[in-house]
Each structure stands twice: as structure tokens, then as C-alpha cells.
């Protein structure tokens, strides 16, 4: 008998669906992961307990996870705000470097005696501006000539990386510490370093969470966000309503670049304490894209998703110490990402079986997938 899978859009998505589906997907991913772990010769229960203990059990583990989540929240927000308008900023990585370059310049150029609040504010502003300008290099061609921002922002990453490498490895620049035998950045003065909360966790996490709340408010509660959401849904309707799509494209990409750059400021000031290209190139910008996709571009969703991904990452080294390959850790990460994003389909649609003879009645489904069942 040949049946059809019937796909119907859900009219309204309630909270039980919005939270239930990702949690179900997560459970599914962990189950699949358990099978893979078992195949790899590991004890899944021990592995999952180690993961939990090393990343979320106790303040020490939690602060380590939050420290790793800090830049992810910011690059996640950077991607999310652009995705809200269906502008695909893949350049978070490069914008982050520019933020790090700009902030470390301020930290090294201003007198070391500058009070910390003033110093950090200046670093944040200059870093954010540098990232925003870097994003505008892609935004202006996009707005005026409809140049594909996916390509341009991606390409700008490589230029930013080369620029940062050149500043430290290829030249005697202002940033480079000439006294170090292995090329590296000058160490920032104490006043340019983000105060620690606990261990590696620094006040960058507060900046990140405040940014998430602010962004949520900006997108949901202001007329500016109203326009962004309209353009994201239908540029033609937005133009019809008299909104300037061009100006908003530039504004959103600049904001996105600024947020990614703040992640760079937070890293350079709170973690590496100097422009250190090797430590800064850990794909935080790219991971932010994953965060935004899983969080469905919701700024408030970005925070838990970042913490979750950071938890998986922090538990990685401990998992290796009990004999689990790093590849398996990556595999688990990939599985979770895949199932949660695939679960998105079930958030917006319901799927049921329909017999061929009943499929002719009722309102037309968005799509029918033929399946021999």
C-alpha cells in the first residue's frame, strides 16, 4: 500500500513545541551518540557523566564553560542579528580579528595609568568600530550592487587573518613585542585587562549577556527592529511600506560586525592579554554562525545555545583523558547540531500519514512527500 507523508504548517507554535522539539532532538542526538560511543569501545554512561562533571557540575566547571561561552554568545549574536534580516554575515571571524587589533591598539597606545573603566570603554568602542567598518566593506557593495555578502564576508576573513598575522609575524609593527624570541604581541597593561570574576571567567560574560538582552529588545520592541523583521520576511513588502532596505542592510551588517568585534575585544583583553594570532584563531566567528542557526536567530536563545556548545567543548579534553578520541567529541557536536537544526522543521510543521483516498480533501498541504510505506 502506498501512503503519503502529509506535511502541514503549524499555525501557531506554542512553547511546548518551541522547547520540546529541541530537547527531543537533543535526547535523540545523545542516544545516537551513545551508540557511536559504544561502537568506539567506550562506555556511553561514563562518557556522558564525565562530560557533565567537567562542564556543568560545580562552580569551577561552570565558570570554565561560561568563559568559553563568552565570545560565542557575541559572535552568535552577530550572526543572529544579520540572519534576522536574511543577510548572511559569514565574516564574524574576520570582524573578530579586527576587534582584537583595534582594542589592543587602544590598550597599548593609551597610557598604562588610564583607569580601567575608561580604558576598557575605549577599547570596546574602537574595537567595535573597527569590526563595523570591516563589515561595511561587504555591506556597501551588497547595498549598492547586490554583491553576494556570503562571498564577500567570507573572503574578508582571509584578508583579516593575513593582516593580523602580518602585524605579528611579518613586520615590526606597533603590536609586536620585539623582545620575545618567538614572535608575539606586546602584553596589555593591567588597566586594559577585563577583571576576572572567577578563574578564567571575566566580565566579558556580563557584556555578552547584556548585549543579548539589548539586542532582543532592539529587534522585538523598537520600530528599528520592526523594519529589520519586515525586510527579513519580505523585502518587497518593506519597500512597499516605505522602508529603506539599502540603509538597513548597511546598518545591520555594521551592527553584526561590531558584535563580532566585541568578541575579539573580550578575547584579547580577557583571555590572550595581547594580540596573539594563534590563540585568537579558534574559529569562534564560525562557531557563532552555528550558534545563531541553532538558536533560530533569537538573541535570547543564543545565550543557552552558546553555553551548551561551550560545555561540550570544555568537556572535550576530559573526554580525551578517559580515552575518547577528539574526533568522537567533534562527531557528537556535529550530531547535536544536525538533529537540533533538522528539528526546526518539526517546530514549524506537523507531519502525519495520510491515506491516498483522504488526501484529496481538506486544505492543500504545502508539500507532499511520496513514500512507499
Amino acid at each position, binding site marked *: 500500500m502506498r501512503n503519503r507523508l502529509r506535511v502541514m*504548517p503549524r499555525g*501557531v507554535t506554542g512553547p511546548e513545541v518551541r522547547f520540546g522539539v529541541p530537547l527531543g532532538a537533543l535526547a535523540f542526538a545523545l542516544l545516537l551518540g551513545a551508540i557511536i560511543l559504544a561502537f568506539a569501545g567506550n562506555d556511553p554512561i561514563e562518557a556522558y557523566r564525565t562530560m557533565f562533571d567537567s562542564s556543568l557540575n560545580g562552580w569551577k566547571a561552570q565558570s570554565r564553560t561560561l568563559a568559553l561561552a563568552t565570545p560565542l554568545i557575541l559572535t552568535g549574536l552577530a550572526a543572529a542579528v544579520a540572519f534576522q534580516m536574511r543577510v548572511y554575515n559569514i565574516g564574524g571571524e574576520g570582524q573578530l580579528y579586527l576587534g582584537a587589533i583595534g582594542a589592543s591598539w587602544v590598550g597599548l597606545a593609551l597610557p598604562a595609568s588610564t583607569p580601567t573603566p575608561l580604558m576598557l570603554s575605549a577599547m570596546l568602542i574602537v574595537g567595535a568600530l573597527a569590526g563595523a567598518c570591516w563589515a561595511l566593506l561587504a555591506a556597501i557593495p551588497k547595498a549598492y550592487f547586490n554583491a553576494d555578502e556570503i562571498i564577500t564576508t567570507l573572503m574578508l576573513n582571509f584578508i583579516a587573518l593575513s593582516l593580523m598575522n602580518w602585524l605579528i609575524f611579518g613586520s615590526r609593527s606597533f603590536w609586536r613585542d620585539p623582545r620575545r624570541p618567538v614572535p608575539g604581541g606586546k602584553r596589555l597593561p593591567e588597566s586594559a585587562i577585563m577583571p576576572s570574576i572567577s578563574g578564567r571567567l571575566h566580565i566579558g560574560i556580563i557584556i555578552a549577556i547584556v548585549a543579548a538582552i539589548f539586542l532582543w529588545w532592539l529587534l522585538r520592541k*523598537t*520600530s528599528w527592529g*520592526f523594519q529589520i523583521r519586515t525586510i527579513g520576511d519580505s523585502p518587497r513588502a518593506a519597500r*512597499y*511600506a*516605505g522602508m529603506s532596505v539599502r540603509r538597513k542592510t548597511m546598518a545591520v551588517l555594521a551592527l553584526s560586525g561590531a558584535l563580532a568585534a566585541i568578541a575579539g575585544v573580550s578575547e584579547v583583553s580577557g583571555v590572550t592579554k595581547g594580540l596573539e594570532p594563534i590563540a585568537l584563531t579558534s574559529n569562534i566567528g564560525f562557531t557563532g554562525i552555528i550558534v545563531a542557526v541553532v538558536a533560530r536567530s533569537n538573541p535570547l536563545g543564543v545565550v543557552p545555545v552558546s553555553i551548551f556548545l561551550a560545555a561540550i567543548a570544555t568537556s572535550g579534553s576530559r573526554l580525551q583523558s578517559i580515552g575518547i578520541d577528539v574526533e568522537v567529541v567533534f562527531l557528537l557536536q556535529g550530531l547535536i547540531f544536525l538533529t537540533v537544526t533538522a528539528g526546526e522543521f518539526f517546530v514549524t510543521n506537523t507531519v502525519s500519514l495520510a491515506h491516498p483516498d483522504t488526501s484529496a480533501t481538506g486544505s492543500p498541504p504545502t508539500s507532499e512527500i511520496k513514500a512507499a510505506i
Partner: protein
Amino acid sequence: MAGEAPHLKVRNLTKSFYGVPAIDSVDFDLRGGEIHGLLGENGAGKSTLCSVLSGLYRPDSGTVSLDGEAVQFRSPQDASRHGVGMVYQHFRLVDSFTVAQNIVLGMHKKQRPRSMRQVESMVADLAEEFGLHVDPTASIWQLSVGEQQRVEILKQLFRGARILILDEPTAVLAAQETDRLFEAISTMVAKGHSVVLVSHKMAETMAYTDRITVLRRGVNAGSVTTASTTPAEVARMMFGDSNAAERTNYDAAQQVGEPMLSLSGVSVQGDHGLLAVDDATFTVRRGQIVGVAGVAGNGQRELQEVIAGLRSPVSGTIEIAGTNCTSAGPKQTAQAGLAYVPEDRLGVGLAPGLPLEHNIVLKSYDRSPHSRRGVLSDSAIEKTMNELVEKFDVRGNRSGMRVSLMSGGNLQKAILARELNEDHQVLLAAAPTRGLDMAAAEAVRSHIINERATRGVLVFSEDLDEIVKVSDVVLVMFKGRIVGSFASDELDLDEIGLLMTGSGAEIASTDTPTATSTRAGS
């Protein structure tokens, strides 16, 4: 290429979409070696019939037979094997491939010569034979629109098509190219091919076809021999009887007031560089409904967009309620008092993925009480929505639901609810009842007629009956020009039908085929 001229016979053909018949028990005969014109308004079922004949759709019921033999085309390839080929209005060519590559694209290895050189020489021979000159080695992107069309025709001939269906082939062509196309068509017919010519244009149909079939609302309104009919008769078949359309009864003593919308010499460039609107001059006054009749694609969309401020005119001036809006944007025209119900409800009139409360304040979100200093007031927006939903009887909304899940009638009411605010002076409505059920269409129509009491209305519709029903003045648009203007008490539906298809009184009175001089009334 030789052989008997084919004879295609269609009986009782029905094809429905979601329960609505697009064609209903249609009979159609294509005789061997004839050029058969297929006419009808938009939505009359021409495309559906052609899609069935070319194997794209399968009919719900009815039969198709070719030379007396019943056939069922399972796919366009299958139809092509039977010698039926279709040339679409929008070409299906790969820009970066050569002419020869495009011609054999999709053909099975066994059906085509192995070397491209051989294909090229065969294409060249075919082009020579039918007078469809085009360089087989040129890439598609290098060719003009007319040449690309020749490639499409050659593609079908190369596959052995004996029956060619041409969907509005002249819509994209300039005058000389049109002449060359018809020369090629006559060559084809002389060599035993049959041609179905889908068209909106009366003049070329009268000039070049042997017989004409008119579809009206999915049914065959008649097949006639071209030589023994007149444009007036064909127009009547297309648009219905003059007596059928009734004017809605309303206050005949309505006072006409000051101008609400005035256009003077407005010309607009179309997307393809040609003039889409050519020297449009008219006025809509307070207390007046002006209807614009015309077959789709004759510049109506560009005219709407230029009035709404979504396009800039190349010349002329536009005034909305006394404000000069010639080069104003959509925001300024709305402020000047224009309410605009666009043709595309979802995607232009409404943001489909966003909820009703968002869409209902799409143009007033940035004003008090909906926002103050850039901060939205959710409660004020909800209040506005509830008031308007009540007032305009918008149904089927649930909180937070995206509007695309609402029915067409409710979507249109939602747009009207937003546009017909207290500040507007003139309503511009495009295809306001298209696709709506009877009750919803009537509700929308009554909103439009109510507008007339205190404001001005400009309404565009492809449905001539509707235009006649509601309008005080009917303008006819053809090829970007206003080719006719009628007051409601001197309406002549036959005349309007002729003007809509590009033939004025001079063609009606003579039998001389003048395909290229279709600028009637200019």
C-alpha cells in the same frame, strides 16, 4: 519532415486545481497545416490547455487524439516523441551554453548525433530551411530575445515537432522581429506543420490565423474560421455580452469634486528598457471611481508602481490630493493620502511570514500611538488590530500566526483595513478581487464603492465585468498607452474589448491585416 499533416483532436478535456476547474469540458480541434489562434483573458484556461497538450499536466478527464489515435502524454518528452512541442513565453534556455548545446540538451544519447559539430550543421540546415536564422555556435547570452525565441522553436523542430504551440510569442518581440516570426510560421505550415498561436492581440490573430478558438472562464466560447469573423465578434466571445455586465446601483447624483489624483504625460521605463507606460494623462476626482481595463502586461503594474512611488517616471507629473508626488517615495505618497492595495497580496501588500498585528501596522508602526521615540507599544498595536479586525470583519487569525495561513479574502480585508485609514484621500486598488470567493469579492467591492462617497478611487482589474460594474469612468490600457476613455453612461463593451486587444475602430471596419500597426487609438 514530410508526412501527413497532423490532426489533433481534444474532447471534453477537464483539469482542476484544488477542486477549481481551470478548463472544463473543452473541445478543441487542430487541423493539419493550419495556424490556430487561441484567445482568452488571463485565467481563461489557455495555459492549462497548452500544458495538457504539451504533456506537462495530465487531464482529470477527457481525451486527446492525434491522427485518430488516442494518446496520453506522460511528460513533455513523451509529447515531443509524438511530435508536439511547446515554446513558452519565458524561455527555457541555459545562458552559458551554445545554441546547439541548448537544442540537444535533455535529448537521449541515441536520439542525437554524437558530435556537436554535426549538431551544429544540422541546426544550421534547419535554420536555413525555416528562415530561423541564428548562429548555432553562439552562446545564448549573446543573442537578442528574438534570436533566443528562434532557438526555442528550432529546439522543437529538431526533436521532430509537427505541432508547435507558441505561447504569446510576440509579447517579447519588436515589430520587425514579429514579421520575421510570422514568415517562419508560414514556412512551417507550408511544410505541413500545424501551429497553435496563443495570443492576446486581436490584430495579429486576425491577420495570421486560419481559425480561432476562444476560451472564456475555462470553457470553449467558440471556434470560428478567421476569414468569416470580425474582431468585434471575437472580442464579444472573449469578454462576454454587453448586456451581461450590470452596473451596481448606487447614487447616480453623486457629486464629483476636486482632483484627488492627477497624472499628466507620465511615462515609465519598464524592466526591459522599453517604455512600459507611455504618456499617461488622466484625473481621478473626489466622488469618482475610475477603472482601468486591460489585458495584464500592458503597463498596468508599472503605472500602479509609479503612482505609489515605487518607481520613478521618466517624464510627466503626478499629483496626489494636491501634493506633487512625481518623484516621491512610497512613504511620501502614503502621507499625501494614497491608500494602495497592490496586486500581490502576499509578498508586497503583506509580509507573509509575520503575524497580523505586525502587518496591520506595517505603515503606521513608527507613529504614535504604535510607537513613541522608536519604542513599539505592543498594547497599542494590539488595540488597533482588534479594532480593525472587528470593523473589517477579518477572520481566521490566531495570535502570533503568520498571515500566509489566512485565506485570500481575509488577507485582502486586512490590507483594506490598514490602507483605508482616516487620513487617506484616494484609493489605488489593483486586481482587488482576484482569486477571492464570491462573498469575499462582494465585501471588497462594497468597500471600494463606499470609498466613492467621500474620496476618489482608481481601480485596475483584468475582469472587465468588474470594471464596468463599479466604475464611473473606464480607461483602457494597451501597450502602455491609455487608448480609450468612456464615461459610465456611454460604455460600449464591444469597443472596450477591441481596444483591450489592440484593435481600434479602423481594424473593425476593414479586413486588411495590419499586424504591426496595432497602436490603436494613439
